[in-house]
C-alpha cells in the first residue's frame, strides 16, 4: 500500500515539476508548482513527519503560492504566452542538467546507505516543541531566534521596497 502511494506521489512530483518549467502559460506554471508542493507534503506524511507536512501545506502551498499568483496577476495578463526560449539554449541546458542528474543518481545508487530501521523516529508535537526551544544537545533555540529576526527584517524590507514612492 505504501509503495503504491509512494509511486503515485513520485510520478506526480516528476511530471508536474517538468510541466512547471516547460509550460508557456505563467498561471498554469503556478498551479503545477502548487501540485508539486502538495505531493511533497504527501511524502512528509508518508514518512510520518506530520508537523512538517502541516507546515509545508500552510506556508508553502497556502502562503507562497498565493503570493506568487498575486504577483502574476499584478504584472502580466492571464492569457499571455511566455516568450519561447531559443533551441540552442534549451539544448545545452538540457545536456548539462542530464549529465548532472546522471552523475548524482549513479553516486546515490553506488553509495550503499546503512539504514537504521530498528529505532522508531519520534516526531510528536511535544518533542518538536522541546527541541526547538532547548539549548542542550539537539536543541535549536539559536536558529529559531535568528530566523524570527530575519522574518521581521524581511517584512520591513518588503514593505519599504513595494511602497509607492511619494509624489514630490
Amino acid at each position, binding site marked *: 500500500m505504501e*509503495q503504491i502511494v*509512494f509511486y503515485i506521489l*513520485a510520478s506526480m512530483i*516528476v511530471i508536474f*515539476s517538468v510541466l*512547471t*518549467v516547460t509550460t508557456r502559460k*505563467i498561471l498554469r506554471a*503556478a498551479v503545477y508548482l502548487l501540485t*508539486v*508542493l502538495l505531493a511533497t507534503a504527501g511524502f512528509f506524511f508518508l*514518512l510520518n*513527519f506530520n508537523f*512538517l507536512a502541516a*507546515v*509545508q501545506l500552510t*506556508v*508553502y502551498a497556502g*502562503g*507562497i503560492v498565493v503570493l*506568487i499568483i*498575486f*504577483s502574476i496577476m*499584478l*504584472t502580466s495578463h492571464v492569457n499571455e504566452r*511566455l*516568450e519561447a*526560449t531559443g533551441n540552442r*539554449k534549451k539544448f545545452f*541546458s538540457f545536456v*548539462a*542538467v542530464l549529465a*548532472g*542528474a546522471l552523475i*548524482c*543518481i549513479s553516486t*546515490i*545508487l553506488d553509495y550503499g*546507505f*546503512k*539504514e*537504521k*530501521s530498528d*529505532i522508531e*523516529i519520534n516526531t510528536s508535537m511535544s*518533542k*518538536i516543541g522541546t*527541541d526547538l526551544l532547548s539549548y542542550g544537545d*539537539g536543541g*535549536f533555540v539559536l*536558529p529559531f531566534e535568528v*530566523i524570527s529576526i*530575519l*522574518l521581521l527584517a*524581511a*517584512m520591513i*524590507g*518588503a514593505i519599504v*521596497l*513595494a511602497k509607492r514612492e511619494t509624489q514630490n
Partner: protein
Amino acid sequence: MENISIEHFLIVSTLMLFTGIYGFLTRKNLITMLMSAELILNSVNINFVAVNKFLYPENLQGQFFAMFVIGIAAVEVAVAIAIIISLYRKVRMIDVEKVNEMKY
C-alpha cells in the same frame, strides 16, 4: 516502509532539483525563475527529511533544517516579489534580459 528505501526518495529529489535548475537556466521571466528556485529548495527539503528518517532517526535535525529552509524560502519569495513589483512599476516588464536598469 519495508520496500521503500532511502534511494527512492533521493532519486525523486535529484530529478526535482535538476528540473528546477533547467527551469532556472531557460526561463526569462523573473516570476518563473522564482518558481524554479522554489523547486530547488523543495527538493532539498525532501533530502533532509529522508536522511533524518532513514539514517539518523535518534534526533530530529533533518526536520528542523527543513522547517528553517521553508521559513527562509518564505522570506526570499516575499522580498523577491516586492522587488519584482517595484521593478514592474518602473519599467512595465519583468524579463531578465531586458531589465538592466538596476545596473546603473
